[in-house]
Each structure stands twice: as structure tokens, then as C-alpha cells.
């Protein structure tokens, strides 16, 4: 997993269909993963990515080439996912109101320790925090690359990643807090830390 999105070598000519197709092919996988982490729903993520590319295509003739098109696409996609989440939240509030007074459905025990928990925990993070976390630990970007992609400072990226690790360690277990790079403590559990979540 390298920082594959970093190198989109060829110049992109605004309005050019072939260049846009290339951008689509190169960026689709990364954006799909990021939006999946933000929305927590594969179908919604796919929908949002497609919608994002539609928006991007409409704006493509006005794209200014001095900016990295990957970052531009990233921003459109994350904004699309944020809108989706907002709408989903409104829908869920409506759903809760409709269910008021009825007995709540019990949680399926099969839900307990699946990989879906990870996705659920990611989807509970603020969208940009989740996006940075996926870029950093799934796609292998470093902080500088993320900062450049998103047009923010490295410090912001570092703060977001720290927030993500904190939140995830609360939900999924202390191992999600991470380790300092110099330590040789991989796999070692610290005595006061929670270790309830299995890796299975």
C-alpha cells in the first residue's frame, strides 16, 4: 500500500474527457474506501463516489490546473459524503420519532465482534477525521501528503489522526491508540489498558 494517489503523473487538461477518465480510474478505489469509512455503508459510499464524480465532471471545464486534481476530487467526494451523512442523520431522527413508544429491537448478538465494528466506529468519527485516518493507515499516505491533498496544515492532520486514534481506542480497544515509533512493544499489552476486543 503505497501512496498511490500521490503520483498522478500526467498533466490534466480541464474539460478533457480522457484526462477525466484517467482521474476516475486512478482515484475511484481510494475515494470509495474513504467514503465507506465516512458513511459506514458500502452502497452509500458507491453512490456518493458516483455523485462526486458527476459533480466533478460538471465542474471539470472550470478546473484550474495549478491545483492537484486528486485533492480537488477528494474534497468534492468528502463534501458529498458529509451531505449524505447529514441527510442520513435526519432520516434516522425521523425513524426514532416514528418508533417512539414501541419496544426497541434487541441487538443481534452476531453483530458483536465483526469487522463491521471497525467500519461502524470509523463512521462515528467526524468525516474529515475518518478520511485522514483511512488515508494514513490504509492507503499509506504520510501526514505531509495528506496535508497537501487536503490543503490543510500538517499539524491539523496530526491532530485529526490523534483524535481518530483516541476515539477508536475507546470503541475498539487500546491497541487502536497506536504505539510510539521508537518503542519495541508491538503486541504487548500494557497493564491498565483495556484488552477486551479480539482481533478476530
Amino acid at each position: 500500500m503505497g501512496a498511490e494517489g500521490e503520483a498522478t503523473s500526467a498533466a490534466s487538461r480541464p474539460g478533457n474527457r480522457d484526462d477525466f477518465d484517467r482521474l476516475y480510474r486512478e482515484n475511484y478505489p481510494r475515494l470509495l474506501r474513504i467514503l465507506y469509512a465516512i458513511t459506514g455503508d458500502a452502497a452509500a459510499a458507491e453512490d456518493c463516489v458516483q455523485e462526486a464524480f458527476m459533480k466533478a465532471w460538471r465542474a471539470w471545464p472550470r478546473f484550474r490546473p495549478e491545483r492537484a486534481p486528486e485533492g480537488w476530487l477528494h474534497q468534492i467526494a468528502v463534501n458529498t459524503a458529509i451531505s449524505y451523512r447529514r441527510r442520513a442523520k435526519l432520516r434516522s431522527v425521523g425513524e426514532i420519532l416514528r418508533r417512539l413508544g414501541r419496544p426497541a429491537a434487541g441487538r443481534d448478538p452476531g453483530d458483536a465482534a465483526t469487522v463491521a465494528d471497525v467500519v461502524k466506529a470509523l463512521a462515528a468519527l467526524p468525516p474529515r477525521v475518518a478520511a485522514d485516518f483511512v488515508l494514513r493507515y490504509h492507503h499509506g499516505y504520510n501526514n505531509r501528503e495528506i496535508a497537501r491533498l487536503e490543503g490543510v496544515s500538517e499539524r491539523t492532520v496530526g491532530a485529526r489522526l490523534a483524535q481518530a486514534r483516541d476515539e477508536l481506542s475507546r470503541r475498539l480497544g487500546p491497541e487502536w491508540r497506536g504505539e510510539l515509533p521508537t518503542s519495541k512493544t508491538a503486541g504487548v499489552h500494557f497493564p491498565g489498558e483495556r484488552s477486551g476486543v479480539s482481533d478476530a
Partner: protein
Amino acid sequence: MPERELSEQIRRRLSAALDDGAPLVAPLPSQARFATLHGATPSPRWRLRALTVAAAAAGIAVVAFAGSPQPRQWVVQTVNGITKQVGIPAGSVSPSPRDESPTSGQANEPTESPEATQEPRESPEPAESPDGDDTPQSGPGQPQPSPTAEPSDGGGGGDHSPEPTPSSGDGGSDSGGDGR
């Protein structure tokens, strides 16, 4: 302050969660949703087709309104036939509905059907009918009857002598001699 790193195991879990949940079946660019937007803009080929159709329509219109009588009649007949097929009341469209072939006398159009049966009444047009793509009624064999009817009145007067032509035949033949 150095940043914390996730262990390899946790990274694998993260990747597994993302990969399992959202399997990567990226649609081809041509199948992507934005490609439908792309199709909406008219391509040069479409423009060429549209231009061709427009030129043809303009040509037909010119022939219909300003051409020589024979092609004009043909155009009028064709348009009339099409409007009948489509179901538009075409009474106003055609100055010469008389040349409608037997097929034209459909039940749909009460206004048209009588005219189709009483063709000879339309005096101005029939003059051209013999040489044109005439109908079986005016007859392959008898050139006389049709010319007879119209020259008599030269204009709208044809309506006053309703159906003398084919049957009464000879009554008009003498006057038709000076006709066309």
C-alpha cells in the same frame, strides 16, 4: 512529539474491514454516472444529422410552397397521407385531397372521406392528375373523364357540378377539350 503508529495487525484489520465491506468493483468510465452527463452534450455527428434533417425539411417546404405544381402536389399528397396516418385532421393542410388513393378513405376522417370518393369535384387539381401518380379511380384506361370536369369552371365553381364526371362522362368531354 512523534506520532503514534498503528501496529501491523491493526492495519490489517482496518484493511480487511474496508476491503470486505466495500469490494472494489469500479465501473468502467463509460459506465460511470458522469458518462451519462457527457452523452447529453450534442456531438458533432449529431449536429451534422440535425443539420441534414433541417435542410431536407427546408427543401420540402420550399417545394411545397413555391415549387412547380407537380412536385408541389406530390409533397402535399405525401404530407396529407402522413397526417392521415398520424391521425391529425388534415383538411386544412391539403388543397388537393382528391388524389388520395383508396387507402386514404379511412373511417377516422369524416371530413376527408367524402372528398376522396367525389374526387372530380376538385376542379383545379385534377388537371394534373392524369400525368401524376393517379389513383385507380380515375382509371388507367380512360383519360377523358377527368379532364372533362375541371376546365368547365376553372376555379371554385367545380363544386357546383358535383359528380357529373365519371358516370355522366360525356357531358363534360366537349368542354374538356380545350382544357389541359
